[in-house]
């Protein structure tokens, strides 16, 4: 490449000169900061602040809990150390919410993923009827959680929907309201979670199954392998990368269930169906306990990040 500068520049261009060439520096200065700034202000800083607010009792009034309020002569918030952590970890509603969140993850992994895998194996081939089934199974995933929750509070309403139909069928005198009965309220939410998200995981598996070479499966067929054997010895092992991704989504998604809880039970009856996030919303946000809500948030953050780090470095290693 010859340019007009060649007779001047004998040394190779310095890093700085390369950056100035073709407006590279200009591009970097214009293109990089906006995304970094938005991400920092609305994602990273709030997470960091949650850590700083957690040891305070603070209603959110004023710029920060440690700022001095001239009107009252005291700080806006009160330092209470680890008390917020003690308070929620000793709170029975929190313990239930934690158990429920673990239950969501367990049901996702033990019930939902096998269902998704089974269905994916049944319909991954591109035939017309399979495409229709795929669309139907994917439908719940693209519906809003709020809409899904409202639909199922109708279906499970003892005076109207499915539970009335079942209790009539069984000749029960009184209507059964699963969303108002203690163990059943959260079991209902679990069932709806499976209903809503199995299609998402199924789609991940279908994409994985379609990338497995046909020759291998045909060779296995010629050797006399049955459908089940092909699934167990060829398809599922080759699908492992896709399965690890869907496990990751199940856990991180399971930690954040909220939108479905609000229309169905709003955490009731007597705080038995809270998840970690709905607990945070109810006892932190609604009551404007900024310090307390931040402490719960730090807990949620720690669980999520520890899982993600451990998972990435063990199960997903080398992928």
């Amino acid at each position, binding site marked *: 490449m010859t340019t007009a500068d060649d007779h001047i520049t004998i040394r190779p261009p310095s890093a700085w000169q390369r950056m100035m060439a*073709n407006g590279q520096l200009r*591009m970097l200065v214009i293109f990089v900061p906006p*995304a970094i700034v938005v991400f920092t202000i609305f994602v*990273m800083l709030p997470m960091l602040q949650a850590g700083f607010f957690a040891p305070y009792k603070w209603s959110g009034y004023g710029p920060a809990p440690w700022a001095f309020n001239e009107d009252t002569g005291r700080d806006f918030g009160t330092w209470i150390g680890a008390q917020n952590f003690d308070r929620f970890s000793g709170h029975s509603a929190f313990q239930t919410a934690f158990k429920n969140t673990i239950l969501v993850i367990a049901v996702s992994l033990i019930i939902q993923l096998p269902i998704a895998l089974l269905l994916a194996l049944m319909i991954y081939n591109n035939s017309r009827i399979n495409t229709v089934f795929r669309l139907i199974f994917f439908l719940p995933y693209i*519906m*809003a959680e*709020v809409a899904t929750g409202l*639909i199922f509070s109708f279906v499970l309403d003892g005076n109207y929907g499915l539970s009335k139909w079942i209790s009539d069928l069984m000749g029960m005198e009184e209507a059964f309201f699963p969303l108002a009965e203690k163990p059943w309220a959260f079991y209902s939410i679990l069932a709806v979670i499976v209903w809503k998200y199995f299609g998402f995981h199924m789609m991940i598996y279908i994409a994985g199954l379609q990338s497995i070479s046909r020759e291998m499966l045909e060779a296995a067929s010629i050797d006399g392998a049955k459908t089940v054997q092909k699934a167990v010895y060829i398809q599922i092992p080759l699908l492992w990368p896709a399965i690890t991704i869907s496990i990751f989504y199940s856990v991180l998604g399971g930690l954040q269930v909220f939108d479905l809880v609000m229309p169905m039970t709003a955490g009731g009856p007597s705080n038995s169906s809270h998840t970690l996030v709905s607990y945070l919303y109810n006892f932190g946000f609604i009551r404007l306990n900024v310090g307390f809500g931040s402490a719960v948030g730090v807990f949620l*953050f720690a669980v999520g990040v520890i899982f993600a780090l451990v998972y990435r470095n063990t199960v997903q290693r080398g992928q």
Partner: protein
Amino acid sequence: MFSWKESGRIIFLLFVSSLIVVPLLATILGGFKSNGELRVSPFGLPQEWDLQFYGEILGDAQFWRYLWNSFLISIMTVVLTLVLGSMCAYAFAQVRFFGSRFLFNYLLLGLMFPFAAAIMPLFLTVRDLGILDTPWGVVLPQVGFGLAFSIMFFRTFFAQMPEELFDAARVDGCGYIQFFWRFTLPLSTPILATIATFVFVQSWNNYLLPLIMLNDREGYTWTLGAMDYRGEYAAEWNRTLAFVSATLAPAVVFFLAAQKYIVAGLTGGAVKG
């Protein structure tokens, strides 16, 4: 060709499908029934198709305001995520600059943690910026949380573009910024559509952020509106079902049409045929 195995498969799949379709049909049909009929036959066809409830909802200016607010917030989120995300990812893909690895990993941290964890300080940030009760209060946090995954997808896509193209353009005096607008973006329509669809769906369905950031009913999204409506007509399920159907129908049609891109988003940004 008839086989027991094939018909068994179809029957099983039809059974699973019915678990999905029946509640949805019951919802749509429920909006046509009187409340009394809804109690007696929640899943059957209505005896008389009563258009009153759908009519009232579709004729209500507030309903359309909900939809408009959701639409506005979603579009703003999509545009900002695409612009900021693609620009930043382009820089990462084209140039290895001082701190680029660090900055990229910094953004990827956003993929690791549950966003609800920071909801309290986020609320205060939005309040202190004076954008509570405005679309921006929902849009900007959504953009922030969407950037991590979109930058990751964009960068992978941009990095796969042939380098020769850039070299050739540079010989002709095309700079980095010009190249981005003239070549990179036009060649990236599949990934742009994928991310746009994905971000739009998430924003359209979002409930937690609007719930926290919007207090004024004028600015409510449809998810908040639906919950409000349910509270208002707690004794009349047929109205709520009509409301849910009226909001769900356009969204489902749009999402099914864009299904290809949603699935591509799930499976790592690869769009096939």
